[in-house]
């Protein structure tokens, strides 16, 4: 049911973990719906220098978390803010219809983390 890209990101997720002194943290989802995604950012000069994630969720949730971190790294905050959930799913060659709501979390978590950074630094 999952594409090869999904299985790759799921079985070898990139950027798992926490950033010790992250300057932006975003969390979305909740345990009752079975998805929790947490994104940690290291922003320098308006650029995402480092990003890590922790996720409680299904295969799609983990793969989209991994993919969103890959897509975000090196981007400016403005670029990262226009990254859509759709784009994440496409970068994974698509998700099964039943799993589209998982992809709805990954970009959201990233945006939350950026907003957290912006709130702290404004």
């Amino acid at each position, binding site marked *: 049911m999952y594409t090869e890209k999904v299985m790759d990101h799921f079985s070898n997720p990139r950027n798992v973990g926490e950033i010790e002194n992250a300057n932006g943290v975003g969390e979305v989802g909740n345990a*009752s719906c079975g998805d929790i995604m947490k994104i940690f950012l290291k922003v320098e000069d308006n650029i995402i220098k480092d990003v890590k994630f*922790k996720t*409680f969720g299904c*295969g799609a949730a983990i793969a989209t978390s991994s993919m969103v971190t890959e897509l975000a790294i090196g981007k400016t905050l403005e670029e990262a803010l226009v990254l859509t959930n759709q784009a994440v799913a496409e970068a994974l060659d698509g998700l099964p219809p039943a799993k589209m709501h998982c992809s709805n979390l990954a970009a959201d978590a990233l945006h939350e983390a950026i907003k957290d950074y912006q709130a702290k630094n404004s």
Partner: protein
Amino acid sequence: MKQIYLDNNATTTVKPEVLEAMLPYFREQFGNPSSVHWAGRMVSGAIEKAREQVAQLLNCSSAEVVFVSCGSEGDNFAIKGTAEALRHKGNHIITTTVEHPAVLETCEYLEKNGFEVTYLPVDKDGMLDLADLEAAISDQTILISVMWANNETGNLFPINEIGEIARRHKVRFHTDAVQAIGKVPVDVQAAKVDLLVLSGHKIGAPKGVGALYLRRGTRMTRFMHGGHQERNRRAGTHNVPGIVGLGVACELARLNQEKDYAYVRRLRDKLEQGILSTVPDVKLNGHPNPDLRLPNTLNVSFNFIEGESLLLFFDMKGIAASSGSACTSGSLEPSHVMKAMGVDIVLAHSSVRFSFSADNTEEEVDYILAELPPIVQRLREMSPLYQR
């Protein structure tokens, strides 16, 4: 790669003896058993032999066995057929919160059509309170439907006692025995059930065939209308190879069940004890007394990890298990069984079911016990809920 199949409550492989018995009925003996000519006569005896084999396993008369297309059809037939036939007597049905969707959704459908349904709760071990059950019976009650064994936890319900209560109150009793057949002894006389459902593909017969035990004299409205097959009880051309296969699978179950129970029980207990003693933060789901569960079923929650991701990592090691987590079916809800047992929401999402057959081996259990802890550890390290 190794392939270790521990999802026998979802479906089983067809047994070699079963497939062999079926094969002649696809091309050589392909007739319609309702036909009078040679092609029909060749197969009508095969249907009756299979009916006898099913009846022997259940300890009933072969005239009480109706062949259907699957467990779900059996449950729909039993419940809707009773509801319609007994509508003049009352509109109340009693069932439990932990039934299979084939029962639950059928009851919910009937609720939209003027029936009242009591869904009995279960305790934290997934067990019913028989006093609750008896108290729920009113003069409107026309049916009690309680599964023999739960598919997720393996919990065995006290069917004999429920049969006693139902008989005492003169209420019809249906049991979904899809998971019990071939795993524990099932005797419709001892259990005093009026309707019992079984499904072929859970016991080494093929998918697409099942049976309904219909106690003599039980008035039912038909579910499948049409031709006069099955003594006018179920329309549709007989699935001859499937029925022949179901018969042989029932015969094999009858002959081997005692040996098989003990064998799978030993493997299941070994896996259960191994996981509980080596993996931290694990919770057993279902009754703690293994005698009160199917001998082949183990359901455990690996805290902090969502079930599907665990299954996918197991799968990379060739281990096929299943998850109570409904994530797999695209709903956000965790298993209704875990919910009914009051299992904490994260633990409900992190439950995994291992279900054995007699084809499994002790080496497979050893392999799982070796592979499992690092997978759990790795996924926990990805989890925002886990603190070392």
